[in-house]
């Protein structure tokens, strides 16, 4: 199985919102689509899922043109929604039916996910004081976080082979964020193809092996996250010393990125310059508490790439 996007282009009038997006997943895993607001991520996802007609390009699933209606796709849209006036059970059964899941199987899945996402009291409320069954709640009666859980449930009800998660963690409290992460980890473990879009870089670093960063519809960076980081080299030096080292930093010609009471972050050209600076500190009998040379974070890469793009 493979998933490939080739040269996707979408324009609205004279404005091109996606300029030739291409990427490939040779096997199961998580692919990240990153970008600022309005970068073209959601438009690209909609084109991939066949909701929007593309001006050109193709989306291939296992080498052939992908037909989303015929596939089992789970989608958690950025623009989340449920029917506010209908009961949760009714709409979950409907979403499952549209995916071709039988009613009995859907009920089984709903019970599983309802228990796992702690939604039982809303979907299968306990009987009332008179012992009469109580109807499943309506979506409008749920908090935003719980509605988001129901939407994740709707996306995963059919046990999809291909999952698209657009900003899955946005707006969640830490407890529910952990719950979502656990679910996503399980889906990855089942060898699924997952495309994730998020502004939360730590989440992307946690789950994704390959990324595409988009800015104003253009791809500004693409590839394996580890390779990208490697290509930047270890240029972030975090130092903490007992004595002041400002004069030595200036002597070594290093740029201070950030200075906090806990540490000073410096930019070096590589390991060689870092070692030279360490020798300089030791030669000046500075007590070094911390000397940590790291690759740039995804956040830094993102800001650098997108910031540069926006300045152009």
């Amino acid at each position, binding site marked *: 199985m493979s998933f490939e996007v080739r040269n996707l282009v979408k324009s609205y009038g004279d404005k091109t919102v996606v300029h030739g997006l291409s990427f490939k997943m040779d096997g199961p895993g998580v692919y990240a689509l990153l970008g600022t607001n309005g970068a073209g991520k959601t438009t690209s996802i909609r084109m991939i899922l066949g909701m929007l*007609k593309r001006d050109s*390009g193709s989306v291939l699933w296992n080498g052939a043109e992908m037909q989303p*209606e015929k596939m089992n796709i789970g989608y958690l849209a950025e623009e989340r929604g449920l029917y*506010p006036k209908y009961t949760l059970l009714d709409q979950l059964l*409907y979403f499952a*039916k549209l*995916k071709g899941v039988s009613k009995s199987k859907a009920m089984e899945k709903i019970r599983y996910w309802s228990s796992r996402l702690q939604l039982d009291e809303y979907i299968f409320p306990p009987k009332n004081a008179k012992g009469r069954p109580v109807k499943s709640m309506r979506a409008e009666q749920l908090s935003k976080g719980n509605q988001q859980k129901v939407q994740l449930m709707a996306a995963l009800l059919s046990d999809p082979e291909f999952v698209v998660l657009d900003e899955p963690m946005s707006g969640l409290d830490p407890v529910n964020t952990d719950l979502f992460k656990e679910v996503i980890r399980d889906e990855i473990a089942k060898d699924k193809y997952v495309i994730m879009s998020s502004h939360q870089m730590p989440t992307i670093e946690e789950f994704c092996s390959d990324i595409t960063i988009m800015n104003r519809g253009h791809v500004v960076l693409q590839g394996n996250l580890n390779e990208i980081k490697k290509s930047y080299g270890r240029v972030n030096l975090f130092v903490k010393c007992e004595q002041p080292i400002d004069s030595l930093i200036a002597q070594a010609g290093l740029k201070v990125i950030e200075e906090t009471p806990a540490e000073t972050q410096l930019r070096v050209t590589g390991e060689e310059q870092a070692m030279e600076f360490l020798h300089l500190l030791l030669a000046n009998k500075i007590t070094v508490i911390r000397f940590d040379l790291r690759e740039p974070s995804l956040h830094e890469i993102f800001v650098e790439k997108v910031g540069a793009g926006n300045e152009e």
Partner: protein
Amino acid sequence: MKSNELRGTGDVFRFTLIQTLKSKAYIVSLVLLLAISLLTAPIMQIIRGGAAGNKKIENSKIEKAYVCNELPFLPEGGKEITDLSGDEVFSKVAFEVSTEDFDKLCERVEKDGDSKTVIVHPYLGTQGVTVEILRLGSGEVDGDECSALADVLCKNLDQYKRSISGLTEDQLKVLDYNYEVAVNYITPEGDLTDDADKGINGGQFGVAYVLLFVVSMVCIMASTQVATAVVTDKSSRVVELLLTSVRPMALLLGKILAMLMATIGQMVLLVIAIVASNKLTGVIFKTETTYMTSMIPKGILSNMTIPNALVSLALIALGLIFYATLAGLCGAMVSKMEELQDSLKYFTVVALVGMYAAIAAVISMQQSATNMFVRFCELFPLTSPMTTPGARIIDVAPMSYALIAIAILVVLDFLTLRFAAGVYEGLITNMGNRITAKDVIAMARNKKKGGAD
């Protein structure tokens, strides 16, 4: 239209229908309308004054009847028609031919105050023979008894007319025949063609107008509901999730069919309720012909054959699909419920044009049922669903016209749905500003140009 464009239509249809039937708005409106339908016939009957005219009278309180005859062809002063010895109800009524002046007789009877006495007063009115029965306002005799007595006397009057004519029953039937003028011409092919341009009568007008009104009402109700359902999908943001499983076309068509089913179902229930209530009213008020039934001219629905009913239903359904698709498109142009009313103006304009033209056509049928405008409206797709079924049922529109109208509507529905398919998916994911009709046309053009699908 590709088959996968319609995949999931059934699921959308079922879900939308069930949720609509379960909605409080639907249930409340149905209950209210059912209550009105069930109560209309008995209330009309009560307002009209019980079962006047057709109530079955099993016994009568009338003991005496003065006959004050003014008909010139009854030489014995009305005695010719007062033999009711064979009648089950009025056999014991004592008839007395009066020679008094009518007004004086009335005064005397009133003075006497006999509560079981009536005056039978046959005279020649402007419309023909009138048999007037007068009773004391404070008397024991009621209006139904008087009506029944008048009916029996009229029958006797008929028999007397026949007896003095010396004609047989069959000969008399010939005398009763109505005249009808038919002007025909022979076509070059040798066929006889009706050349008469007659207008429809009041009863026919009533049928055509009521049908027009009902179809228009169903059309507006169902179409508005379709538009609301489309906006609900968008405003609740569910549409994105749905679109991973079904195409916009299936979403739209499923909703249209569900709303049509819900609205037509409601109408059918109302009709059943009205018919049942009318029957029940007849039983309760012991009358063969209720007031509601009496309002429907006899034989007016004689052309309601199965083929005509099917043709009419097809026309109505196809018309509703067209209007509902249009309303659905209007719904897709906005993202918020509060904007719906404004976007529905396109639908409203088209529906009003159709409705007013149809009303004008039905009104003009009274003058001439086959004039150019009527013929145009019977074929024009905006008006044919409202005029042609009625015109077909009252036997004004030829079957060929109805079939052509169906063909035109099939083509128009197909094109409208194609057009909707072209623009709907462009509109459906638009969650921002309202889209204008210009944008919609531009989207349709883009679709025509084609893209990498």
